[in-house]
């Protein structure tokens, strides 16, 4: 049906077919158009990125200048104390930093923004399978954001049990008293985010399975689509567990159930707890979602980077199928490695060994992908524009993040480095170093398609330069802090003599972080500026092969003006069959075209 639909208004080839009939509200606010929704997601998450960054700077400040007046915050909240923050405020800072960054930035910007915008365009559909559901998935972000911010403004300004919010700390209101109501808001917020991305994932799966353009076989899909597809599956299977766990925790807090609270604990002089719950249960449930979530936060970036690298290198992707398989492998293994977050938690030691093995194995597909990316660049014709730089940065940083992961996968070593800054370094290299650089690249790469203009190269390079330096300056020393045994989430590590001499290093890291933070203003400015003053471009500024480049930029309502038919894979760059160094998926080469015979549309 969907295809028929798309045909119907492609017929009177008016890209802006329905544009005029729509009011501003229904066109730009409560729009059901996947592109608008995608851009809405993008802008929202970029703003959230700044919020999360500000929180991070707060943390860094305390670590660099412990108990000294914190700018702004000190005046606003702690003027009586000479601006020195309170310890529970610090716990709030890192808790909310993680929360905002994970639930309001990375997950929605990957799946929400780019998933929405790219999927229909890249598979040649006119829109998502369920446009209204799609719109809802965006508008469910806002209650979530509201909840998180409500938790800022309730007593103790914010949830303070860490983003993992381990019970009993998170389950007994008196245990982290500073976050009494805030923790409830936080849990509700997380649940709502879950609802939002669940709507998304259902939509993506349906769309990708049912609405591919004629000839777009599974193995002709760009890796971005594969990544989105697999991510959607991951979310669909993992999320319910977190949601259930979240409800159990809320019940523990508000209804007096004891899923996670063992008997006889005396916290803050309250009556001893009753009822034999099991704190480890939460950890199992939580990580059963949150480990796959790590890949939810990584795979789409991998996919997009693969596309961008192939395009930058003017060269077919090296080992398309191995890439697909390894992504599938990551997804599969991702479900059976959650235990490696719990090596020191006192769970059955036998589990430690199995989880170690499975975790080691999940490093394998990642390695394969890395080699393939390098292989892709190998022998290509590359030019250092912003997209290339960010993509290469992705690879190089992902290598660091991936390798440091091996230390933690090894249980005995993990005994020592668990919950130290080594972990912090590791996941910041993966999430910031890899994912975020991938995202920056993607923003630059698909911006022309979104707004019909290119982002400014100069600003882009400046942004990349400072961000890359700042990021490494901030996160690399964390490895050493970890090896030195500096535990996470310490408001004042220098209390402990064996860490005193790390103050200068922390200050260096903080300055790097500030640099990095400032650099993001460049991105925002560039983004806003180029929308109006950027260099105008046509349909295919990057000389790329994907279907989305056959649509006008920006694509009108309904995306394509002619029904795209797909004749080959997305990476036929520098094909000997044609003069120019790219070959659109839709371009029909009359026989003798050795490329591939035209297939009938599967679901005609």
């Amino acid at each position, binding site marked *: 049906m969907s295809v028929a639909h798309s045909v119907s208004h492609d017929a009177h080839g008016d890209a802006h077919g329905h544009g005029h009939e729509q009011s501003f509200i229904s066109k730009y606010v409560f729009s059901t158009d996947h592109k608008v929704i995608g851009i809405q997601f993008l802008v929202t998450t970029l703003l959230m990125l700044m919020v999360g960054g500000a929180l991070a700077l707060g943390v860094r400040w305390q670590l660099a200048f*412990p108990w*000294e007046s914190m700018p702004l915050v000190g005046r606003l909240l702690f003027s009586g104390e*000479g601006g020195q923050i309170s310890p529970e*405020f610090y716990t709030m800072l890192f808790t909310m930093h993680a929360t905002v960054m994970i639930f309001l930035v990375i997950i929605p910007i990957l799946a929400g923004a780019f998933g929405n915008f790219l999927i229909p365009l890249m598979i040649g559909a006119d829109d998502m399978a369920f446009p209204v559901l799609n719109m809802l998935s965006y508008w469910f972000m806002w209650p979530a954001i509201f909840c998180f911010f409500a938790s800022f403004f309730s007593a103790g300004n914010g949830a303070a049990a860490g983003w993992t919010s381990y019970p009993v700390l998170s389950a007994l209101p008196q245990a982290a*008293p500073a976050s009494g109501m805030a923790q409830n808001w936080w849990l509700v917020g997380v649940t709502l985010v879950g609802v939002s991305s669940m709507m998304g994932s259902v939509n993506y799966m349906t769309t990708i399975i049912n609405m591919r353009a004629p000839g777009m076989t599974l193995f002709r899909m760009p890796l971005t689509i594969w990544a989105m597809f697999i991510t959607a599956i991951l979310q669909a299977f993992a999320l319910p567990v977190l949601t259930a766990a979240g409800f159990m925790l809320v019940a523990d807090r508000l209804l007096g159930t004891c899923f996670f609270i063992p008997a006889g604990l005396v916290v803050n002089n309250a009556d001893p707890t009753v009822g034999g719950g099991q704190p480890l249960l939460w950890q199992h449930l939580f990580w059963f979602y949150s480990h796959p979530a790590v890949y939810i936060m990584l795979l789409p970036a991998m996919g997009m980077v693969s596309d961008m690298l192939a395009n930058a290198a003017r060269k077919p992707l090296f080992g398309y199928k191995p890439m697909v398989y390894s992504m599938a492998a990551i997804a599969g293994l991702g479900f059976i490695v959650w235990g490696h977050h719990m090596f020191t938690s006192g769970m059955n030691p036998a589990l430690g060994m199995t989880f170690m093995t499975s975790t080691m194995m999940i490093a394998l597909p990642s390695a394969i992908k890395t080699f393939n990316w390098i292989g892709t660049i190998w022998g290509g014709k590359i030019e250092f524009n912003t997209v290339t730089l960010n993509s290469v940065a992705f690879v190089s940083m992902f290598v660091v993040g991936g390798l440091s992961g091996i230390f933690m996968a090894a249980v005995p070593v993990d005994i020592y480095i668990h919950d130290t800054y080594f972990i912090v370094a590791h996941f910041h290299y993966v999430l910031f170093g890899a994912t975020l650089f991938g995202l920056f690249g993607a923003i630059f790469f698909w911006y022309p398609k979104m707004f019909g203009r290119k982002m400014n190269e100069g600003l882009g390079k400046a942004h990349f330069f400072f961000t890359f330096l700042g990021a490494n300056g901030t996160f690399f020393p964390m490895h050493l802090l970890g090896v030195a045994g500096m535990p996470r989430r310490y408001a004042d590590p220098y209390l402990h003599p064996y860490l005193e001499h790390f103050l200068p290093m922390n200050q260096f890291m903080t300055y790097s972080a500030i640099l990095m933070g400032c650099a993001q203003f460049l991105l925002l*400015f560039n983004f806003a500026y180029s929308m109006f*003053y950027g260099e105008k471009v046509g349909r295919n500024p990057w000389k790329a092969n994907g279907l989305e480049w056959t649509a006008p930029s920006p694509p009108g309502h309904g995306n394509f003006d002619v029904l795209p038919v797909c004749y080959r894979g997305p990476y036929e760059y520098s094909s000997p069959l044609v003069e120019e160094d790219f070959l659109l998926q839709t371009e029909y080469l009359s026989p003798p075209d050795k490329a591939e015979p035209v297939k009938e549309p599967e679901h005609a």
Partner: protein
Amino acid sequence: MSIRRKSNILFVLACGFLLAGCDAFSPPDAEFVVREETDQLTSDVSKAVEEELESSFGNPHQLVAWLKLPVDFGGVTGATEESTLEGPLNKFPVKFDPEADDKFVAQFQADDGGFNFGESGARLDWMTGEYAGKSMHVIGYDSESQQLTTKEKVEVPPAAGDTFVLSAGETLKSGRALYMEHCLHCHGVSGDGNGPTAQYLNPRPRDYRLGQFKFKATKPAEKVRQEDLGRVIKYGIPGTYMPSFLLLADEDLHAIVEYVRWLSMRGELEYRVDQELVLASGLTNEIIAERKSDGDEDAEIQEEVDEAVAYMPTMFDELGDQLAESWLLAEEEESLIVPAVARVEDSFESRARGRKFFLEKCTNCHGHKGRGNGSMTEDFQKDEETGELYAEPGLFDIWGNSIKPRNLTKGLYRGGRRPVDLYHRLYGGIGPSKMPNFATTDPKILWDTVNYVLHIPFEKPGEYTEVDKEYFESKKKSGGDEDKAAEQEATPTESEQTATGSTESSDQG
């Protein structure tokens, strides 16, 4: 619109933001809070009080070391020696007080053996002699001739025997820094037990400003000793959020103790002054308004107000003296509680005697099984300030916090678990709470009670049935008929045999 102009605008905006930011970014000043009693005083008087406080104690950024107070403010003390030097000079021989000597070395000797006083020199305040109250700056020291070199040249050298303090207030300063780092977020800048974190804690952090502390080894009426505070900081208070600071270096511990005592004296002085001005002189807005309505003429009142204001320095001086005296006394030998006899051998008999004493004296609050659920915890108590009954039943301490008598079945002893600690609690009572002292009781009996109390957590059901029976018999004979319920509770039933205290509500206060 060219990009150059746009970027210029942005440039200007950025600079503006920074300038605006600089104020918001510049650190605010920490403040000592003012008692509400002080606020209720009529404006002139309260202003006078605050000024006097400022001049005697300063604020968190300019501390004042009021030498009247028995606090070790730190610094190296010494006196000048007979000197042969003549005329305008900035060198004079000195002799440091005994233990001050190594303090001096520790503070100023550089690694190369020379002495380093910083580029602006170390401050030297004259205590006596013609330069008393003046200060100079030491820039050098010669260890052979033991001569200090000052920046300032003086015509007349200070007379021999003039005493001075070098870099006074070091201890107070470091105490302040350490306090801000370790203690502030619960106990608050001014030690009012109301820091940012305090609101979440149970029991609430101690408010030093009454000069009263719970766990001390001194006689009932006496103040707390440095050593007592030191113990509390070092070992923490089990059952509360006061953690153990065992790892603090001794000098840091000392500095914190001194700073806490200083804060405590500051608060107590303000409190006493307010008491005087309210009760004796009645200079609160409320009373004055009343008097005006009763027709006292303003002139008369104004006169009193002026008197009070003019009198303020003297009042601070006198009350300060009293304060100093009482805090000094606490450190004296005779203020310390020393058991008159050695601990009585811990035996069943001893514990039985203790149990008897416990039944007589302690059950109202601690309950017949020592679970802290005595009858007093159900009665409504009277608020000493207002004379009204408290809203909810139970006991209240002098800070107005609801407190529960200790649940002794838990084996948690906040003041320390050594026998001597419990002896101190019994002999000295816990003044700020309702725990009375038994200074007049036979020390042997107290030791019996200590033995009994220490053994409560391990008491077997029915262990003291005999003692209890006997006790209640005797009560009945003397006509007491109230304690049916108590007796029921005290003498174990079948269910009691198995019941444990584990599900008891834990203790507070």
